[in-house]
Every structure is written in structure tokens, then in C-alpha cells.
């Protein structure tokens, strides 16, 4: 077992995915009044799950954002519902913080094991 095991690598990949999703959701909110704008999102959970099943390298796992063209919630063609985006943003931020906490705890465990502290 190497120092950086699957859990650590998948944590890093999840952090990358969550960070990308945060940026995409922020972009959606910034474009809430842009006519014809279609919301973007990324399902990094599914990408991560399939990568872990197929044994794809988690270090090089790239997340591809999708554009949702099926929804139009406003007469000007904008597909952004600000309430929903805000809720998703808050959820994603909590998830990111949870991931960071776990990553921090794991680093502490490694440091204790190495006798750094």
C-alpha cells in the first residue's frame, strides 16, 4: 500500500470536481439575466464512481461539464433558476468543506504516524 492510497486520491479528485462545480454554479448565477443562457453543471459523483469501478486512474481523472439545454424557466430563454442555483451552491460548498475536513484529518493521521507531531 502506497502512502497516497485510493481514499486519498479519490478525496483529491472529489475536491477537484467539487471546486469545478462551485465555479460552474457561480457562472450560472452570474448569467442569471443573460438571455438564452443555458445552465452548466458537472456530475462529478457519477464520474468518480465510474472511474473507481473501471479502475481508471484517479489522479488524471478529468470532469467534463455539461450544458442543460432542456430547461427554460424564463421568457427571455434563460435556463437559470436563481433559487435552485443558490441552494446547489450552498450544498456544494458544504460538501467541499466536508471533503477538506476529511483530507485535513487524514493528513494529521499521517503526520502522527510519521512522528512529525
Amino acid at each position, binding site marked *: 500500500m502506497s502512502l497516497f492510497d485510493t481514499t486519498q486520491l479519490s478525496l483529491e479528485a472529489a*475536491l477537484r470536481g467539487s*471546486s469545478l462545480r*462551485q465555479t460552474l454554479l457561480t457562472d450560472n*448565477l*452570474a448569467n442569471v439575466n443573460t438571455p438564452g443562457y443555458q445552465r452548466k453543471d458537472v456530475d462529478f459523483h457519477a464520474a468518480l464512481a465510474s472511474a473507481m469501478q473501471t479502475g481508471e486512474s484517479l489522479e488524471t481523472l478529468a470532469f467534463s*461539464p455539461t450544458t442543460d439545454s432542456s430547461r427554460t424557466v424564463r421568457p427571455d430563454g434563460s435556463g437559470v433558476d436563481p433559487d435552485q442555483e443558490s441552494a446547489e451552491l450552498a450544498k456544494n*460548498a458544504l460538501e467541499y468543506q466536508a471533503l477538506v475536513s476529511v483530507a*485535513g484529518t487524514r493528513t494529521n493521521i499521517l503526520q502522527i504516524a510519521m512522528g512529525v507531531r
Partner: protein
Amino acid sequence: MGLFDAIDVAGSGLAAERLRMDVTAGNLANAQTTQGANGQPYRRREVVLQEASGQSFGSILASASTSPVNGVQVAGIVEDPAPARRVYDPGHPDADAQGYVTLPNVNPVTEMVDLISASRSYEANVTAMQTAKQLFSKTLELLR
């Protein structure tokens, strides 16, 4: 690609919504202006937003890592083609031969609604920016 992107994107949203607020305030201020810059009655202006095309240096750098996120930018400020209001007021210095004054096509109610919309969108962008900032400082705590 990173959380700083989120802050930049929210920043572009703040700039866009602030301009919408400025233009709406300009419309409200000029609701009774019968002599605009061209001598004609003032015409209502509207901000058209578009998804940023991402021509900045940072975004070209980011596109190397296939970043689809660019934020929002102003496509232009257009004049509302709606017909002007005509009000009978023969005593007005700008009244025509029939005693009618041509007033701007500004409806204060529409402007107030636009103002609320811009203000709420601004707040949403502020929240997004604060969240990104919190996440980033949380990540920096890992280094302590």
C-alpha cells in the same frame, strides 16, 4: 482552473448587475426628460448581457485546461424602441402645435422592478463570491 475562477466569475456578475442598476437609475432620473442629448425626448435604455467569450489572458490560460467558465459580460446598451408617451400639456415649452408633449417611454414601475431584479442578482453574486472565499480559506487551513 480553481476557486479563484469562481471569484472572478462572481466579480463579472457584480459588474454586470451594477451596470444594470446604473442604467435603470438613469432611466428613472430621466423619466420626464423632454430634451435628451440629441434634442429629442430621452429614450429608455436597457443593458443586454451575454456569456463572456473569454478573451482575457487568464481565460486563454484557463482554456488550456479546458475551462468552460467565463462569467458574464455586457453585450451593449440598447434603446427601447417602444413608442414615446404623448401627454396633452399646452403650457409646456416643448409642446407641439396641437399642445401635446412627447415624454420618454420610461415606465417607473418597470424600472423599479428592474431595479429589484438587478439588486437581488447582485446579492446572489455577492453570496457566491463569499462562499468561494470561505472555501478557499478553508483549503488554506490544510497547510497549517
